[in-house]
């Protein structure tokens, strides 16, 4: 895939109580964000395990965004803090593998933060665009 035609595919795990509502609000407010993200609603980012991020990247996602509640504001008290530690651990594994850890990122937003969420998505898409297509997809067979 040529760099100039590259449109990143980014998987966004969004917490039902904040980021998912925030993305919804962005729609109501007519705030634009790139269509490169595929949003998956999760009951809490604490539900996400390390293997979810690994599988997403292994199966060809160019980037993975984890969007949870503001620290201290988790509906389940500390689910977002669990997710933060798991994201950090997965980033360590990505470094060991030799893959850019920037392909996985966690952000904290509240349900009212539509603009910051959109900005984060724009920034994530640009970061991944600069990194280029997932090397896993380039070197191996692409799972559709």
């Amino acid at each position: 895939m040529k760099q100039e035609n590259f449109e990143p595919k980014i998987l966004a795990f969004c917490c039902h109580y904040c980021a998912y509502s925030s993305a919804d609000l962005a729609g109501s407010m007519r705030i634009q964000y790139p269509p490169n993200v595929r949003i998956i609603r999760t009951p809490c980012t604490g539900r996400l395990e390390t293997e979810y991020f690994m599988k997403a990247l292994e199966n060809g996602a160019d980037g993975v965004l984890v969007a949870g509640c503001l620290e201290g504001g988790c509906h389940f008290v500390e689910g977002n803090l669990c997710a933060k530690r798991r994201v950090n651990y997965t980033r360590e594994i990505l470094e060991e593998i030799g893959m850019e850890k920037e392909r996985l990122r966690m952000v904290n937003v509240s349900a009212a933060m539509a603009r910051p969420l959109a900005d984060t998505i724009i920034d994530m898409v640009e970061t991944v665009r600069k990194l280029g297509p997932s090397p896993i997809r380039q070197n191996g067979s692409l799972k559709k």
Partner: protein
Amino acid sequence: MIIAQRKNIPDLLAIVKDHKKLLVLGCGTCVTVCLAGGVREVSIIASALRMSAKLKGLPLEVEELTIERQCDNVFLEQAADAIKRNDAVLSLGCGAGVQAIAERYTNKPVYAGLDTAFIGILEERGVWTEKCAACGACVLHEYGGICPVTRCAKHMLNGPCSGSREDRCEVNPERQCAWQLIYKRLKDIGQLDRLKKIKPPKNWNRSQSGGYRTIIREDHRV
């Protein structure tokens, strides 16, 4: 419980790089509880190996399986087909599990995916501490249930060493002085008299000095 931790991915890939079909075999007992070699860790390490191999252009197929217990033939049989259809096995069991597979499948390369560390307990979430050195001749009854062989940095049977500061070990201030704990515990259970008796040197013959150890129970043999 046996505590282990994973080797890093570059080391693992260097170990298995000459094989094309690899079975990553987890164990559902101790290493599952210490989050090193259960179903989840098998999934993570298998994914990481597949990705790492792809990035390096190595043709590596990785199969995942976790059985209840690797150090037991009855459970190990459940992995027989998977072991046979792969070129090699990367065991995420403890050292005993790896060797159980190696002894049973004599023509199959078996590698250790974990570094087996010690016998210990879960101290708090994500923290494990060594409690037993498996010395073969337990002295815990003398020390109020706190093992000086394992938990004192100098393995002193007649302590304390006088180097401790407050309740901290002088070898590593982050650790508690085992002898402080022993004193407090014996005081709490009214057995301080035990400390008045000088303990003779420990008999280490029942430890690892004579090679591997065996226990034979005639009453259970068939």
